[in-house]
């Protein structure tokens, strides 16, 4: 049977409440209980195998092998014990929640989250891969966050939720680091590898750091001092959550982890000191504070903290049977603490308060609850015949067996006896204060109504389990705890000698705790008064202060770096570029690659000087925008000439057309923008920018010089050789565009189309004319459409269209092609717009631009797809020659069809951009949208 089913069942169950939104909690609980029940049955079916001492069942499925991550499940004694607790108590919690949420129609969220939590928790205890386990670990933190903040309108609940997330989430990060180090030390993240590699891990040089990180994760999760803070504040959650997550299961995850990794990490001096001391502190702090809590759930929360400390202490102790005692007490605690929380929930419902100074004498109103709670309270106090009594004596016994180090052998027994005394006192207190101690005082709800009899079923069942555990500890131990102990030890273990427990010093210590606790409780009134006079140290204040400081600090750092100035970001990017590239350049042997320079001719020198002067002119005159724009046009023209000079006629033609359009567009923009830029930059700022720009320029110059003087290695020989036979064209640049790299071109015309449509969308609701800031009339001609221009333009159009058709047709063999022909057509049409005005030209423009763009892309794509019909890959071209009378021999290739798509796209996109920008110029517009 696949183990993954055990986790999938509650996960499926988590989806069910979503379908039953707004239904009664009764239905929700019944529906949710089903998967849990199945899950429990599945687990129980494994029990005989595990009790027999069968091998661990491991099932793995590779997920990300390169990261060592696998979906892996492992079921052994330890996992099964925890899984049984999780599903067993989980099922009872669902039953309890049915009554707790009775009358509420919004509890679907609770039932979803609680089952999600169950799945996550099962994932932790059944994972084979440690990284996989971490995923579930984080999931429990997240679900816990959502459940603590269940009452989203409650400020305290939100704060408590946040605090728990910060602490457990932070611990989770530490754990992640620790686990990664552990996996590296062990050579794998599978438990079967890790558990065998104990020697190697403990001998690893980073063992100390690794252990600290892992313990940090476990301590935060299991609410160990000083991270215990979040647990009492988590009591804002609904009581079923407190009972389940924050006493029986989630807080045990840290303990589980340490038990699980025991063979890999434990039994070093460092482990002993860290784990034992933390456990001792937590045990005492929790027990002491619990005694003085007036809030029922607060008392139970601190008592949970204390018990978690106790188990932690046992995990650290290192005596042969300490681990067994820890596991046994863990079971006892889960069984007696959950019903006490449930009791607190019912009493709170019945009385409207959690303050034990007011709730008194409940035995009159709910006698059955009183009887049942007495069992759990007695077990918590450790009265004879109770499960807690056995586990307490196991603890005493282990503490006495400790021989080294010297201080521990003396202090720990005394320490645990004292803590047991407190635990007796607070156990008496919660029971006595709630059910006896006189009469109720000023209850918000009166009269208190006893919970229904059936509602007591979960408490009754858990109390019964507690009783059985106390009456037959050996049977329970052998059945459940011993296999878990063996699995945690990874070795065969001797049975626990229960007979030796009841004698000698252990008994004396128990008696001391019981008598002392009773006395302590008896003296409570003066003690409370004394406690009230102690200076109140609220750890929450400290936590909040820390959080505020951290947030402020982070904000300051962020704002220092990121102040919203784009100029600054760009300068940073450029400076980073200069620094990073510059650092890599310190050992460039020589920039000059050795290839002989070609001789300089005067004309080229002149063009270069012109280009430089124009570019510098743009910078110098950039405050006066129109002259700067004209100089920019000059640079574009010289660049065009440069392309022509160095054997790139296609580029020269393209650049020429684009240059015309770009300047027209910028002219249009300039008519709306201020005509001058204010001089605002300080000299310092200009110096800084000039330095950055100069360095970038220097780098570009150096690199291009280095490239130009090195021998060329190119893959273009292939294109040159295959252009004719493969592509049917002799203009290699065009063949590359439409054939060899046709897919790229398809992408590029798509981008062009998208940009054009984006311009269309932006200008759609933009009404500039009436908003235009002052314009300097001196620059602008009064007559918008000069007659001379109009006459010439009309004459030019047919010629230009003819030229573009010619350029298009010859493009495959001579400079030209779809891009250039498209641009020529666009320029010719743009001229009409300029000469005749937008309204005039638009009225005569029969083709809509956006469909033209789409058609272009479509033609190109369909041409490409066509090759599929003949069984060739996408965009394979075919070609042949056609002899037409008069015109002569025409080379035809399917690539020309593709080029036609390019042509249509370029024309459509360019005109869409220009016409829509032009539209902004007119006050009224052409009456409809353009495109």
């Amino acid at each position, binding site marked *: 049977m696949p183990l993954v089913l055990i986790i999938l069942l509650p996960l499926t169950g988590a989806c069910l409440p979503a379908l039953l939104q707004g239904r009664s909690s009764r239905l929700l609980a019944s529906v949710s209980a089903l998967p849990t029940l199945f899950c429990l049955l599945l687990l129980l079916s494994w029990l005989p195998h595990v009790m027999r001492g069968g091998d661990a069942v491991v099932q793995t499925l590779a997920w990300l092998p390169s990261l060592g991550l696998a979906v892996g499940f492992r079921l052994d004694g330890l996992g099964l014990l925890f899984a049984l607790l999780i599903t067993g108590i989980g099922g009872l919690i669902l039953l309890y929640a049915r009554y707790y949420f009775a009358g509420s129609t919004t509890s679907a969220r609770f039932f979803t989250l609680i089952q999600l939590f169950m799945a996550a928790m099962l994932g932790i205890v059944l994972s084979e891969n440690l990284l996989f386990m971490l995923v579930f670990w984080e999931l429990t933190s997240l679900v816990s966050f959502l459940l603590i903040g269940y009452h989203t309108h409650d400020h305290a609940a939100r704060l408590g939720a946040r605090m728990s997330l910060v602490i457990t989430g932070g611990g989770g990060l530490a754990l992640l680091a620790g686990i990664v180090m552990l996996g590296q030390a062990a050579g794998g993240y599978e438990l079967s590898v890790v558990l065998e590699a104990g020697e190697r891990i403990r001998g690893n040089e980073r063992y100390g750091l690794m252990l600290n990180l892992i313990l940090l994760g476990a301590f935060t999760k299991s609410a160990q001092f000083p991270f215990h803070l979040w647990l009492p504040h988590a009591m804002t959650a609904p009581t079923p959550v407190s009972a389940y997550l924050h006493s029986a299961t989630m807080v045990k995850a840290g303990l589980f982890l340490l038990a699980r990794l025991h063979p890999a990490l434990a039994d070093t001096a460092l482990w002993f000191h860290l784990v034992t001391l933390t456990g001792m502190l937590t045990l005492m702090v929790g027990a002491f504070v619990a005694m003085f809590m007036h809030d029922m759930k607060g008392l139970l929360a601190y008592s949970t903290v204390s018990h978690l400390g106790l188990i932690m202490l046992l995990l650290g102790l290192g005596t042969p049977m300490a681990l067994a005692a820890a596991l046994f007490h863990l079971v006892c605690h889960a069984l007696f603490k959950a019903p006490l929380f449930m009791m607190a929930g019912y009493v709170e419902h019945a009385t409207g308060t959690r303050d034990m100074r007011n709730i008194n004498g409940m035995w009159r109103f709910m006698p059955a609850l009183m009887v049942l709670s007495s069992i759990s309270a007695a077990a918590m106090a450790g009265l004879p015949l109770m499960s807690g009594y056995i586990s307490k004596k196991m603890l005493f016994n282990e503490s006495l067996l400790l021989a080294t180090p010297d201080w521990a052998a003396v202090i720990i027994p005394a320490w645990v006896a004292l803590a047991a005394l407190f635990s007796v006192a607070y156990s008496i207190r919660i029971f006595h204060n709630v059910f006896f101690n006189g009469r109720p005082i000023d209850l918000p709800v009166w009269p208190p109504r006893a919970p229904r009899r059936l509602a007591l079923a979960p408490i009754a069942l858990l109390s019964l389990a507690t009783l059985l555990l106390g009456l037959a500890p050996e049977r329970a131990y052998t059945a459940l705890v011993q296999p878990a102990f063996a699995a945690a030890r990874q070795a065969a273990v001797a049975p626990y000698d229960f007979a030796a427990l009841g004698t000698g010093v252990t008994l004396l210590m128990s008696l001391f705790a019981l008598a002392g606790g009773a006395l302590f409780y008896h003296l409570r009134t003066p003690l409370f008064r004394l406690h009230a006079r102690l200076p109140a140290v609220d750890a929450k204040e400290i936590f909040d202060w820390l959080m505020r400081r951290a947030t402020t600090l982070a904000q300051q750092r962020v704002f220092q770096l990121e102040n919203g100035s784009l100029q600054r970001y760009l300068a940073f990017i450029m400076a980073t570029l200069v620094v990073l590239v510059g650092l890599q350049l310190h050992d460039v042997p020589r920039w000059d690659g050795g290839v002989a320079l070609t001789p300089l001719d005067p004309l080229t020198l002149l063009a270069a000087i012109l280009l*430089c002067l124009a570019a510098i002119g743009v910078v110098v005159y950039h405050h006066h925008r129109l002259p700067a724009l004209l100089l920019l046009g000059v640079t574009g023209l010289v660049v065009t000439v440069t392309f022509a000079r160095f054997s790139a006629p296609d580029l020269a033609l393209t650049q020429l057309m684009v240059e015309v359009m770009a300047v027209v567009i910028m002219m249009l923009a*300039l008519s709306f923008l201020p005509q001058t830029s204010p001089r605002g930059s300080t000299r310092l700022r200009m110096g800084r920018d000039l330095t950055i720009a100069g360095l970038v320029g*220097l780098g570009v110059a150096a690199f291009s010089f280095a490239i130009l003087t090195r021998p060329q290695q190119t893959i273009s020989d292939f294109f040159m050789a295959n252009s004719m036979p493969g592509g049917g064209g002799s203009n290699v640049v065009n063949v590359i565009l439409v054939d060899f790299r046709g897919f790229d071109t398809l992408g590029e015309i798509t*981008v062009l189309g998208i940009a054009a449509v984006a311009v269309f969308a932006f200008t759609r609701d933009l009404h500039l004319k009436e908003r235009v800031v002052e314009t300097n009339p001196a620059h602008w001609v009064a007559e918008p459409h000069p007659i001379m221009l109009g006459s010439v333009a009309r004459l030019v159009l047919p010629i230009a269209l003819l030229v573009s058709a010619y350029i298009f047709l010859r493009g495959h063999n001579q400079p030209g092609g779809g891009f250039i022909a498209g641009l020529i057509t666009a320029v010719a049409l743009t001229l009409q717009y300029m000469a005749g005005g937008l309204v005039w030209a638009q009225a005569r423009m029969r083709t809509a631009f956006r469909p033209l763009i789409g058609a272009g892309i479509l033609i190109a794509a369909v041409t490409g797809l066509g090759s599929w019909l003949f069984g060739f890959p996408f965009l394979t071209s075919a070609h042949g020659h056609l002899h037409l009378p008069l015109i002569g021999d025409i080379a035809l290739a399917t690539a020309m069809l593709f080029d036609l798509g390019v042509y249509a796209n370029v024309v459509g996109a360019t005109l869409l951009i220009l016409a829509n920008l032009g539209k902004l110029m007119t006050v009224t517009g052409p009456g409809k949208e353009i495109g």
Partner: protein
Amino acid sequence: MELLYAITLGILTTCGVYLLLRARTFTVILGLTLFSHAVNLYLFASGRLVTGAPAIVGLAEHSADPLPQALVLTAIVIGFAMTAFVVVLALKAAVELRNDHVDGENPDEDRT
């Protein structure tokens, strides 16, 4: 010729980057255009400077490298589309925010 080409490219880049770092949108567009000229020429230079031999089969013994040319050709067209887009963006920003500072606000010209 190569040295001249490299120096010219350096100057063009410097001018472009300097204008890119200015505070007004129109100036930035000017800078962007200069900078894209420089980038196109730089890419083009990777095919080396060959004179009088366009990449047409059968025209010359050692013709120019067609690959950078094809790359640059599409780069020019897309650069044009991007310029147009930035122009519209600048216009829209100028209208909506009532000033043409790149940050949409000019409490003081230089923000550091």
